[in-house]
C-alpha cells in the first residue's frame, strides 16, 4: 500500500515537474542560444520520451541511485543526506516544542473553560495560526539576535542556532495540538467514569493525569505524528529565514532552477515521511487505545 502511494506520487510529480518547464532552458542560463539549449537537452537526456525518462529514473532510484544534480554536480543522495540532517533535527525539536507547550496549555484551558487562562490560550492559538512564520521568525531575530544579542540570527553552527527556528516551526504546530488536547480533555472530564472517580474520592491530580489525559491525548498523538511529517517537508520558510540550508530549502531552490533529479528525490523522500508518520500514528493509537487493537 505504502509502496503504491510512493509510486503514484513519483509518477505525478514527474509529470508535474515536466509541465512546469524545460529543465534544459533553466540549466542553460541567461545568455544561452537555442542551439546551446538543444545541446544541453541532449547531454542530460531530456530529449527522450517522458515515460522512458521516468522508467530510467525509477530503475536507478530503486537501487538507491537518484542521479546527479546538474547544478551542484554532486550525487543527489549525497546532497540530500547532507541537508536532511538539519531538517530532521529541526523537525524533532519543533514537534517536541509544540507538544511541550501545546499539551499543558490545552490541559490548563480545559480545566477551566472560558476562564482567563482559556482565553489566553485561545489567543495564543489564533495568533499562531494567523502569523506568517517568516514574519514571526524575523521578529524573534530582531529581538533576540539584534537587540539583545543572545542568539545568532542565522546559521546552524551551534545548538544556539536552532533555538529560534525551533520556536518558529514548533509554534506553527502548537495551536492544533493545544485545541485538540483541550477539546479531548473537556469531553473526557465531562464523562461518567470521571464523575465516578471523583465520587470515589480519587485525588484530582490522579484523575487529571491518569484517567483523563491518557484518553484525551490519543487523537493528539496521531495529529502530532502527521504534523511531524509536515515539519520535515514544510520547514522551507523557517530554513530560509534562518539560513539553515536543510532539505526544505534545497527543495525550494531545486524547484526554482528546475533541478529535476534533486526535486524528484526530495518529493519521494517527503512523501515517504508522510507515509511513515501516518503509519506510525496508527500504530501509536492502537498501542494507546486497546479498543483499536481488536
Amino acid at each position, binding site marked *: 500500500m505504502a509502496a503504491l502511494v510512493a509510486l503514484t506520487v513519483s509518477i505525478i510529480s514527474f509529470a508535474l515537474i515536466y509541465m*512546469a*518547464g*524545460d*529543465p534544459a*532552458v*533553466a*540549466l*542553460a*542560463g*541567461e*545568455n*544561452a*542560444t*537555442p542551439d*546551446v*539549449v538543444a*545541446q544541453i537537452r541532449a*547531454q542530460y537526456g531530456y530529449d527522450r520520451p517522458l515515460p522512458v525518462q521516468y522508467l530510467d529514473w525509477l530503475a536507478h532510484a530503486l537501487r538507491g541511485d537518484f542521479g546527479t544534480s546538474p*547544478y*551542484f*554536480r*554532486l550525487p543527489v543522495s549525497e*546532497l540530500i543526506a*547532507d*541537508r536532511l540532517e538539519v531538517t530532521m533535527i529541526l523537525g524533532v525539536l519543533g514537534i517536541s516544542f509544540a507538544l511541550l507547550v501545546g499539551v499543558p496549555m490545552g490541559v490548563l484551558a480545559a480545566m477551566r473553560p472560558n476562564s482567563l487562562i482559556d482565553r489566553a490560550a485561545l489567543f495564543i492559538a489564533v495568533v499562531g495560526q494567523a502569523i*506568517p512564520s*517568516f*514574519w514571526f521568525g*524575523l*521578529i524573534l*531575530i*530582531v*529581538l533576540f*539576535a*539584534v*537587540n539583545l*544579542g543572545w542568539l*545568532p*540570527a*542565522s*546559521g546552524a553552527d551551534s545548538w544556539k542556532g536552532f533555538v529560534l527556528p525551533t520556536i518558529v516551526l514548533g509554534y506553527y504546530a502548537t495551536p492544533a495540538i493545544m485545541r485538540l488536547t483541550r477539546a479531548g480533555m473537556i469531553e473526557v472530564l465531562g464523562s461518567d467514569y470521571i464523575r465516578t472517580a471523583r465520587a470515589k474520592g480519587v485525588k484530582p491530580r490522579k484523575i487529571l493525569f491518569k484517567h483523563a489525559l491518557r484518553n484525551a491525548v490519543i487523537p493528539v498523538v496521531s495529529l502530532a505524528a502527521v504534523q511531524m511529517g509536515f515539519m520535515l517537508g514544510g520547514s522551507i520558510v523557517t530554513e*530560509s*529565514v*534562518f*539560513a539553515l*540550508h536543510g532539505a526544505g*530549502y*534545497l527543495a525550494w*531552490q531545486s524547484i*526554482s*532552477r*528546475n533541478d529535476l533529479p534533486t526535486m524528484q528525490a526530495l518529493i519521494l523522500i517527503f512523501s515517504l515521511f508522510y507515509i511513515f508518520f501516518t503509519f506510525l500514528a496508527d500504530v501509536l493509537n492502537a498501542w494507546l487505545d486497546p479498543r483499536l487493537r481488536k
Partner: protein
Amino acid sequence: MKPITRLLGCAAIALAMPGAVFAGKADDTVTVAFTRELDNADTYFSSARESTVFGYSVFDPLVERDPKTGEWVGNLAESFTWVDDLTLEFVLRQGVKFHNGDDFTADDVVYTYSHFSDPATGVAMPNTVAWIAGVEKLDPYKVRVKLKAPFPAALDYVESALPIYPAAYYQKVGSAGFAQKPVGTGPYAVGSIDPGRGFTLKAFDGYHAGSSKSKAAIGTVVVRSIPDVNTQIAELFSGSLDFMWNVPEDQAQKIKAKGGYTVTSAPTVRFGYISMDVSGRTGFEPFKDQRVREAVYHAIDRAAIRDAFFAPEAVLTNSVCNPMQFGCDQNVKTYDYDPEKSKALLKEAGYEKGFEVPFFAYRDRQSAEAMIQMLAEVGITANMNYLKYAALAEKVLKSEVPMSFMTWGSGSILDVSASTSKFFDGSAIDDVKNPDLTALLKTGDTTTDPAKRKEAYSKALNIIADGAYWVPLWAYTANYVMSPDLDFAPTPDEYVRFFEMNWK
C-alpha cells in the same frame, strides 16, 4: 520577494537597534552574505554570478580589463599580441605559483583551454568557449590560441570565462575533487567549501607580484549563503556581517536611514527593455505596424518608473544595450513620454479602441505593473504573465511571447556582441528578422578594426531606434552595503573583488 513580504520584513527590521560591536576588523575576517549559493566551485560548470565572484579571487585569467581605465592589462600573461585575425599570442609570466606549490607554465594554459573548449567536456556556458579552435605551446612560457573565426570580443571571454587551472592537479582529482578543493593562482586560496552553504578564503602570501590584481589586504573572507535579505540585514545590525551586495533599493534606503553603514550604488552591465514581436513570429499582428510600436514607446514613462523603484543612478538608455558596452551608441532617435501622441498613433493605425496583448515579465514586478498601467492609459490592455525566468525563456524559444519586459546581463561582457547581437541574429528567437540589421551586427562582431566595428554597431542601433523595434529602458545599478570599518569600491563588472577590500 513579494512586495507584502518585503514590506513586513522592512517593518520588522525597522524595530532593530543597530549598535553592535564589529568583530570583523579585530580578527581580520570579512564576512560576506550571498543571497544565492555557490553551486559549483569548478566554475566552468556553473552559470551563476556567485561562482564568477568566487573564481575571480581564487583563479587568474591570462589578461583582464583594468576596471578603471578599461584597458587590457596582463595577469598570468605578461603581454599579448594579435598575430592575425585568427591568432592570439600570449607571453606568460614566469615564477608564478599555484596555491598548492605547482609552477604555472604553458602546459596549464594549453590543458585548461583545450579541455574546457572541447564540446565533450560540456561546460555550463558553451558559447563562452565556442570561439576557440585550438591552443598551441610555443615554449614553456609562450602559447598561441587559434580562433575559429575573427572575434574581436575574444579577450573579454579570456578574462571572464577562462580562468587558468593547474593541469596536473585537475587531471589527478577530477572535476568533483577539484570542486571540493579548488586550486588556483589567485590572491585568495580556498580555506574550506561547504557546498551550498558557503566558503572561506585565506589570503595567498605567494601571490605573483606582476599581476594586474592586487595582493589580498584582508586575511580571511567568510562567505555565507543567507537567502533572506531581511536576515542579512539582521546579521549586519548584530555585527556578524560586514558586506552585502545586490541589496534591493528600498532595503538599501532603510539601512542608509539607520546611519553608520556605508551604502553605495554602482552601475552594472545589466539593462532592461520591452520586447515586441515585430515580425509576427508569435502570430500576433499589431506590432508589425511601426505606428503601434511607436505608440508603446510614447506610452511608457521610463523616468517615473526609474524614480519610483530604482536608484537615481540607474541611467535611462536609448539603445537596447548597456552604454558601458563597446559599440553601444546612444546617439539615436528617441521617443519622449507623450500619451496623447501615443493615442493618436494608435488611432491612425486603426486601433482606436486599443487591443489586448499578453505581457510577460520575470522580475521587478512593480515596474512591470506600472508599465501595464501606462499602456492601459492609452488603450492597450496588456495582460500580465509573471513567470520564472526559465519558464519565460522557454516560451520565448517557442515563439509564444509577443511582448515582454526583460533584462539582460550580457555575462558582464562589455561589448555589444554579447547583447544586441544576440537579440537580432536572424535565428528563431529574433523578433525582427531584418537581414540588414543582422548583417551589420555580424560585421560588428567579426571585424577586428575597432572603428569599423563601432560604425557597424552604430548603424545597427540606428535601424533599431528608427524602426522603434524594442523599447530601451534603463541600465541597472547594484547596491552594496558595508560595515563602517570596511573600505571597498565596487566596479561595474560586479566581480566583487574581495582582494581589494581594506579595513579603514
